[in-house]
């Protein structure tokens, strides 16, 4: 196993991926680092990749006038960021900004889609993982909406 594959294997998103699949996704990965304040992605820009965070911290933000820039989610080591590469129009829905120095694997979506076309099992493995993350995010969002409703005392 290459160093890259070992690091990918150490990330919770890929930790139980089979070695042959790990080798395929490693071919679509490259390590990147960002300084505090750098943007990993900008809203509206083409989204052809996602990130697996290895260290540091990233905040999902958007400009919400008149409130200004609002952070709506933070993520740290072990988390996965970015889903827009999966579905058209393949554009980032939010800004992603490093809040501290951050290391990540940038996963090339186009390269991965190419691998999925060859190996459906790999596609299934990845999409199952993404569905779980998306499901958890959606549950969390619904809980936050319920808290808002509760706080306002309306049903």
């Amino acid at each position: 196993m290459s160093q890259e594959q070992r690091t990918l294997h150490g990330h919770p998103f890929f930790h139980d991926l089979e070695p042959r699949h790990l080798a395929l996704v490693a071919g679509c990965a490259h390590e990147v680092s960002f300084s505090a304040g750098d943007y990993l992605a900008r809203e509206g820009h083409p989204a052809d990749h996602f990130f697996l965070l290895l260290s540091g911290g990233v905040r999902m933000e958007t400009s919400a006038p008149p409130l200004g820039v609002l952070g709506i989610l933070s993520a740290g080591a072990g988390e996965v960021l970015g889903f827009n590469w999966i579905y058209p129009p393949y554009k980032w829905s939010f800004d992603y900004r490093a809040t501290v120095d951050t290391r990540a694997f940038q996963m090339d979506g186009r390269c991965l889609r190419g691998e999925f076309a060859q190996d459906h099992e790999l596609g299934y493995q990845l999409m199952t993982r993404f569905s779980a993350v998306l499901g958890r995010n959606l549950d969390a969002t619904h809980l936050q909406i319920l808290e808002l409703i509760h706080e306002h005392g309306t049903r």
Partner: protein
Amino acid sequence: MVITKKRREIEGIHTFWLEPRDGGEFHFDPGQFNMLYVFGAGEVPISISGDPGKPGRLVHTVRAVGKATQRLCALKTGESLGVRGPFGSAWPMAQLEGKNIVFVTSGLGLAPLRPAVYWLLNHRQRYGKATLIYGARNPRRLLYVDELRKWRGRFDLRVELAVGSADPTWDGNIGVVTSLVSKTFVEPGNTVALICSSERMMRAMVEQLNQAGLNDGDIYLSLERSIKCGLGLCGHCQLGPTFICKDGPVYRYDQVKGLLAQREL
């Protein structure tokens, strides 16, 4: 009792310090509540949110939601209100000695939990590791911020905060409070969780705590249902076979699990 101090915590939520007219003491256990009577507006159950080690002053934090709580929140320093209590069950602090304690709460849920945090800090050496996980809609909606800041500065209490959204000046977690349970290492085995929030949020908190390895019997929660008499007589707060005002509001989760899951009661 007389209101000797009043503080606006956040919009719509005020904290009151009350003292008996005769200067006596008011003893209570963490987690208990009082029935507060506002003249002409009715009586409502409100948790005691002060320090059980300082019985000279009674502290309540109140959110204005309806007739009684709105009138309560409009009261000023020097005015009086009626107090019946303390009522109900308590966080079983004595029973939990030797354990690691994790408090999980959001919004106004910190008010009923705060006396347990005070208790733990007053008897710090009797407990293992202590963690407070607290969430709010945004940084301006966090209760007791000065105290949270002080607690964060301690070596013997870990404080983890999450807000739903924040401007760039906030450098903490953003997200739902339950996500902090999985991010914050909770050592199963010798850990007990005390949780307080809306009922639906508490079910999500329990799920996360279960995933972190805590059993249902290691989780205590405080339930808020409509309470009228406070004596287990009128039946307003009946939840299956139990009366929240008398047997609750604090329960061990496995004792009420089946009742919370029910859609209609």
